[in-house]
Each structure stands twice: as structure tokens, then as C-alpha cells.
């Protein structure tokens, strides 16, 4: 029970950090507020029992923070150029939150009980009832060491049972890095017809 309150406190902290990131006038302050939100998210992952995710989140957040700070510091003028309208931002955020809350209650109303499982009872881990067969996670936990030889059940799911998804993720990273190279290359390519013109 205690963990839930710490998670709720951290979620509030992340909300405040995100608001500061949106509303701060200085770009460097925004970047640091984003970093604070990301590190709080990694602590949330750790408290919810997902050390794999927590490690990845900490590492990616550090690299992203270093990159963003470096890019911001090289600008001479770090103040934001966007016009600010706090009332409009607040109204948009409020409308978005109301929409999400309405959607949450609507979906759990449509599907009856069990459409959105309560906190701490994941979808794949539910017990068998007369209507639904048992979730698949108990099966993974019981058999992954025997079937794949990996002691870490998370890695057994990621790279053996569901390796096809991981291949998709790897493709996404590959394509995004390719896009980065294409945007950031130093020498552009010209068509032959343009070269002949002065």
C-alpha cells in the first residue's frame, strides 16, 4: 500500500516538472525540467518492480539530457521565441484531462468489470474464470527457464517468445538513425542539371 502513495507523489512531481518544461521562458530550464520528469519516471518503474525498464530509462534519459543541454548551450539566445498564453495552455490541458478521464470511465463502463483491470492486477496475469482462460504470464514465469534457458524472464519474453516485436523495435531504431544521418549530413546532393547552372 505504501508504494502506491510514493508512486502517486512521483506522478505529481512529474506533472509539475512537465508543466514547468512547457511554461518556462528559458530553454535550458525546460530541458532540465524534462530531465527531472524522466528520472522520476525511472524511479516509478523501479518501485513497480521493473528493473529492466528502469535501467533503460535512466540511461536513455541521461543521453537525451546531455544531447539537449549541448544543443541548447550552443545557441546564443536561450530564451524561447514562442508567444505565451497561460490561459490558453491551461484550458487545452484541462480539456485534454477531462477527455481522458471521460474515456477511462466510458471504456470501463462499456466493457463491464474487467475491461480495465485495477492497479496491481495486469491483464495478462489474471486468474482463470468460467468466462476467460487464465493469463499467459503465469505460464511464462513457470516455463521460461526450462524452455529458453534464460534466467531473466523479461529477456526470455523479449528475445524468444516475442522476438518478432523486438525485431520491429530494432527496425524502428535503425530507420530513425538513418533519418538522422539524412537530415544532419554535411554535404547535400545535387542533380546534374543544377550543377551546370552557375
Amino acid at each position: 500500500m505504501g508504494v502506491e502513495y510514493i508512486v502517486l507523489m512521483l506522478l505529481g512531481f512529474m506533472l509539475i516538472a512537465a508543466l514547468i518544461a512547457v511554461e518556462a521562458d528559458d530553454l535550458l530550464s525546460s530541458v532540465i525540467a524534462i530531465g527531472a520528469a524522466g528520472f522520476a519516471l525511472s524511479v516509478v518503474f523501479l518501485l513497480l518492480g521493473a528493473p529492466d525498464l528502469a535501467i533503460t530509462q535512466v540511461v536513455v534519459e541521461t543521453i537525451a539530457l546531455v544531447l539537449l543541454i549541448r544543443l541548447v548551450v550552443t545557441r546564443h539566445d536561450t530564451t524561447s521565441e514562442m508567444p505565451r498564453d497561460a490561459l490558453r495552455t491551461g484550458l487545452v490541458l484541462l480539456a485534454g484531462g477531462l477527455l481522458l478521464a471521460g474515456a477511462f470511465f466510458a471504456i470501463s463502463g462499456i466493457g463491464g468489470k474487467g475491461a480495465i483491470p485495477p492497479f496491481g492486477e495486469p491483464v495478462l496475469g489474471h486468474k482463470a474464470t468460467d468466462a476467460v482462460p487464465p493469463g499467459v504470464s503465469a505460464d511464462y514465469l513457470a516455463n521460461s527457464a526450462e524452455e529458453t534457458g534464460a534466467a531473466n524472464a523479461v529477456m526470455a519474453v523479449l528475445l524468444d517468445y516475442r522476438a518478432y516485436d523486438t525485431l520491429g523495435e530494432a527496425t524502428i531504431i535503425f530507420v530513425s538513425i538513418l533519418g538522422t544521418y539524412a537530415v544532419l549530413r554535411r554535404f547535400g546532393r545535387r542533380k546534374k542539371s543544377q550543377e551546370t547552372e552557375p
Partner: protein
Amino acid sequence: MSQGMTPIVKNTARLVSGFIAVFGIYIALTGHISPGGGFAGGVILAASVVLIVLAFGRETAERIITPSQCHLWDAAGAGLFLAVALVGYFAGGFFVNFITPISKGQVGKLFSGGTILVSNLFILIKVAAGLAGAFLALAAFRRAGLPDGHPKEVC
């Protein structure tokens, strides 16, 4: 003017970057027995390159790995990961773990898990080279795009 940061930062980076790289490889290779995995390990390995770029400047870092080598390793990691998936067809299907039935190893030791260990290694190569190459490209972009620089150097 010399490239990079102050001597304090340079010496610390020289001491620490090797340990960071080894830790990244360790996180990736023991992904199947403890939390971690190829992606986190690759990002840590790229972080050591990022540290060297920040502390010593891009020219020194390119003596260790050049952007074209980064592209090569990136593509090689992606291709080898796909090859692991395709070799599974010889054992029955896409991404079938073909090493575990032959030699299972001891659960909890380093040599266990079959293709999981191999896939983690290839993802490590892919992610580390990709992120390091992207950071090197950004460093080059920053040099060319300085607002008070000489625009004629930019081709």
C-alpha cells in the same frame, strides 16, 4: 586553441570512459541472467563515446571510431540480428531458439539462453554504433552551424 574541455575533465574522461564501455558490454552480455539487455548496454557503450566527444572534441573521438565505421557497425548489427531470426528457419520457424535444444547450458550461467545471448550481442552493436554515429553527426552539425562562424566553410 586546443579542442575540448579543461584538463580536469579530460583526465577524468580518460580514466572513466573505459570502465563505462566495459560496463555497457557487461550489461548486454548478462541480459539473460540479470536485469539489463542489449538496448541498455548499447546506450551505455554509446555514452562512453559521447563522453570522449564532449571532453576531447570530435577530431580525437574520430581516431577511435569514425562516422562511416559507425554506419557500418550499425547496419551490420541490424543485419546480424535479422540473420539470427532467419537461421531459426532451419530449426522450424522464424526466431526459433535453435541453440537451446542443442546445448542448453546451466540456467543462470553466462552460456545459457541460446539465441538470447547472441541477439543481445547484436543489439548491443547496433544500438551503440547507431547512437554514437548520431552524436558524431550532431557534433559535426554544431561546428558547421555556429551562428558567428564562417558560412563559407559550410558546403
